[in-house]
């Protein structure tokens, strides 16, 4: 029994590792054609799904002439499944989705950070027990709302408000960023509150005894003490905001162009993948996998960064 138990728990643990490596490998293999085709230039290329003519040999030139003229009434476009008749190559570049992902995440963070800090300070230091419990519950419920609901709510009720207040389009970087902000708010608030609660009462009471005001206690005692936890919460929220798909898909506008203004529509990596996957094939599909790989690496770096911060805290 002891042995079975040991083996079972060992295999459960190694399964996670296997899954992680497996996912990475499949992503990489699926992205390989796009990586070979576009290389590292993919990261800075703002064009997506654009056809360019290949420098063709004599036989294909004649074909391309044929393909570009309308032959008769019921003539059909060339079939993309007939690989031999292709004389163009489609260019895929990841810059727009990458920038869209980073910008929408930053907007979300800029919006959510001050509010989350306010909530946490209020709950940890100022509110009475009943209020703290009540508001805390509301925050946890907010975290439990599925993202599609945020998407629909954002599209039907939030987007018109944003367009009325800030002008520009209803679905835009700003709309997506703000709704993302609302979505990561509960995580940041809850973790920050918890780490603030770990501040020893002795420290706080000594500060009060020395004549510090509430604001000074928060600023000089609680914040420095729970700094690590706060940074951790930010990074975890970042990880969630980076990968959020469903809500953003409804709100970001899904336009492959770099935003000039904050109210312009653009696209993010998970959205590009979600909305294009159903009809993608060939190199386009591979380019989507390449984007996925980039997102995977991005979130991996951020999460491990967060992990190191937490580990440090334990050592202290």
């Amino acid at each position, binding site marked *: 029994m002891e042995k079975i138990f040991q083996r079972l728990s060992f295999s459960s643990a190694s399964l996670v590792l296997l899954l992680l490596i497996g996912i990475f490998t499949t992503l990489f293999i699926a992205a390989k054609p796009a990586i070979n085709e576009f290389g590292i230039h993919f990261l800075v290329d703002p064009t997506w799904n654009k056809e360019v003519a290949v420098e063709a040999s004599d036989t294909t030139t004649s074909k391309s002439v044929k393909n570009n003229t*309308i032959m008769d009434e019921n003539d059909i476009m060339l*079939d993309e499944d007939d690989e031999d008749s292709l004389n163009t190559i489609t260019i895929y570049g990841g810059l727009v989705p990458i920038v869209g992902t980073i910008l929408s995440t930053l907007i979300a963070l800029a919006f959510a950070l001050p509010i989350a800090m306010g909530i946490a300070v209020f709950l940890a230091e100022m509110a009475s027990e009943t209020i703290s419990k009540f508001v805390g519950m509301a925050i946890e419920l907010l975290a439990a709302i599925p993202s599609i609901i945020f998407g629909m709510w954002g599209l039907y009720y939030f987007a018109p408000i944003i367009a009325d207040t800030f002008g520009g389009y209803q679905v835009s970087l700003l709309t997506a960023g703000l709704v993302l902000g609302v979505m990561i708010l509960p995580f940041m608030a809850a973790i920050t509150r918890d780490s603030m609660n770990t501040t020893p009462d002795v420290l706080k009471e000594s500060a009060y005894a020395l004549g510090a005001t509430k604001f000074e206690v928060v600023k000089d005692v609680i914040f420095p003490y729970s700094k690590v936890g706060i940074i951790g919460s930010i990074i975890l929220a970042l990880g969630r905001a980076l990968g959020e798909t469903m809500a953003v898909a409804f709100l970001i506008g899904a336009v492959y162009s770099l935003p000039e203004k904050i109210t312009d529509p653009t696209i993010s990596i998970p959205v590009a993948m979600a909305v294009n996957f159903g*009809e993608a094939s060939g190199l386009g599909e591979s380019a989507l996998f390449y984007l996925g790989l980039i997102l995977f690496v991005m979130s991996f770096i951020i999460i491990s960064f967060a992990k190191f911060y937490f580990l440090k805290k334990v050592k202290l």
Partner: protein
Amino acid sequence: MTKVIKLALAASVLAGGLSANDVIKGSGASFPYSVYQKWTKAYYKATGIKVDYISKGSSKGIKDAKARQVDFAGTDKPLSPKTLKKFNLYQFPGVVGAITMGYNLPSISNLKLSRSAIVAISEGKVKFWDDKLITAENAGLKLPHEKVTFVHRADGSGTTFNYTYFLSKVSKEWRTTYGAKKSLNWPGNQHIGGNKNTGVASLIKQTPYSVGYIDYADAKKNGIVMASVENKAGKYIKPSLKAFQTAAAKASLDPKKDFYAVIADPKGADSYPIVAATFILVPAEKPKMDKRVTAFFDWSYKNGQEIAKSLGFVPLPDSLTNKIKTYWEKKGIR
């Protein structure tokens, strides 16, 4: 212990295998999904035979059909007889649908859009509503000097393919530069993308001075105002089931070519121009299963007309369904 697990596994595999045999499995195009879904339900009620159709998108449907993972596949893009032969598939049309130009112009409800105006709007060349291209055909209307926002599908879809196919047929320039595609990097900088039909519908509804392409059923359901579109004969046709039917009757779908044709922009003075047929693929080497598939479609052509109409689709005209039946007989799948 292990014996029990093995037994349970074997039982579940058996059970799964048995029930899977009963079900006719299909996948593919999302454009006709709402119709197929209702048809399968009605067919189950009438005959007790279960048909599963999963909306994966046309290209995944074609892939599934080639890999023989499904009993039939739906695609908005017909395969050429050459490709069909190469992959040993048969093809026939399923249903005809229409795409409308929905718009949101406060206090304007009878907008007319010429063919060149539609192309120019899609290209992002029309910046304001009082552009000459639009006002020329709308003499009685007072069009405001407001920015045009073009709404398109964000996700790859058969609707986009059929719309861009229409554009390609109307404009040579569009054909050579963009062509017909399921997802497109739309030109210009006055456009926004909505996720699925729901997204496009609500964006048109919520954005004043917007215009976008959307299938008839969703436009109607959401109360979106639809423009009259200039057809091949130069007449402006308001979207209606009758106009779609007229258009479908004009379509030249030839069984000799495995019905290989996109029917957009048909002839006829009363045909609505932006119509599309969607197709079914079946593997040629499985006549037994194919017979069950064709039985389902045969039933649906006959009994599913009202369902299709209620969803804004056009049932295939009798002349065409008769052709399809002869095609099935010839191929030995009826």
